[in-house]
């Protein structure tokens, strides 16, 4: 009984965090921090730093990864599932509603015009995301080569993206082994 109570608290805490934060990722961190460290005392400030580092180094979404890690720490695997489900429950419901409505309106002329604008803006947002990522991801000459190579391999459709990622990971592992021994 006690365990179910804990899981429920985890779940509804993260429903609140996941359902009402627009923008995802970094926007969620301060709110997660407040709920986890201050309100529920599930982790200390220092443990929270470790959790964020871990969440950043794993694939996936920063905010959801942090939630999963906190859940694991508090209540093991069931806790991880409770927190993760909490983070995505409301957003998925919102998406289902919007996508059902979207079908009805997407052919209106005004909506078509709106999307002509949105497409240009999305291209700019993606470019801006890259500019922000350059500083933390391209720190030396080797990383610059990887960045440029990945760009051209994909634009010229030489290789499927997942192979590009795998090759870059292997190249980096081999290089870092050589650097240690040299």
């Amino acid at each position: 009984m006690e365990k179910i109570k804990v899981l429920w608290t985890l779940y509804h805490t993260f429903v609140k965090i996941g359902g009402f934060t627009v923008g995802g990722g970094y926007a969620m961190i301060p709110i997660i921090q407040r709920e986890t460290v201050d309100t529920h005392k599930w982790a200390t400030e220092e443990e929270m730093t470790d959790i964020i580092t871990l969440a950043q180094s794993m694939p996936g979404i920063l905010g959801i990864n942090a939630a999963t890690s906190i859940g694991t720490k508090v209540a093991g695997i069931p806790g991880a599932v409770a927190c993760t489900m909490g983070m995505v429950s409301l957003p998925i419901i919102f998406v289902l509603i919007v996508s059902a409505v979207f079908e009805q309106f997407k052919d209106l002329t005004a909506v078509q015009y709106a999307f002509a604008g949105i497409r240009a803006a999305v291209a700019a947002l993606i470019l801006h995301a890259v500019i922000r990522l350059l500083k933390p991801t391209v720190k030396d000459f080797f990383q610059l080569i990887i960045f440029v190579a990945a760009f051209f391999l994909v634009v010229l459709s030489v290789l499927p993206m997942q192979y590009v990622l795998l090759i870059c990971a292997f190249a980096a592992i081999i290089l870092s082994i050589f650097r240690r021994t040299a």
Partner: protein
Amino acid sequence: MISLFTMFFRIGLFTFGGGYAAYPLILDGLLTRGWMSEAQFADIWGVCNMLPGAVAVNTAAFVGYRTHGVSGALAAAFGAILPSLSLVIIATYFIARVNKSRILKGAFYGLRPAASGLIMAAAFRMAWATFFPKAGLLEFAKIADGVSIFAVALFAAAFLVMLKVKIKNKPVNPILVIIGAAATGIVCGSAGLL
């Protein structure tokens, strides 16, 4: 449906560096399966940015719904979160060791710039498609057939706003940029400028 789940599972496994890293991967998966065009996907991405939650998971659910209904939405969304869910659980149990593993560190050292390169490629393709609606990707000869001045101007404006404008010392919320772009599109379209 299984194809949808495995597609998003793989995307979830390879998404490093935030939600935008998923954009090129989802687009690639959709194009190879012929489920959606580049423009349709950009529309969905724009809408999902305005909804609460992580844009990558939202987009997965939206795409799943459009291609396979409600169960498709769930399959895609859970496919996208399952890899990181399992990896984060494992990593939490070994929290100290993850930061020390040489191989993992090495892999991330190469994956981070590669992910940036892929996002850059997606931005390039998207910009190309909106700027030169009549030319296919890298068809330089057809550029002269039609350049959308509206798209070029709006792209430049949106990029400058994101880069330079600060509200209370914070960058502008992307949602505002999308809403502004939608409004500009409606005004210019109604005025016959598109």
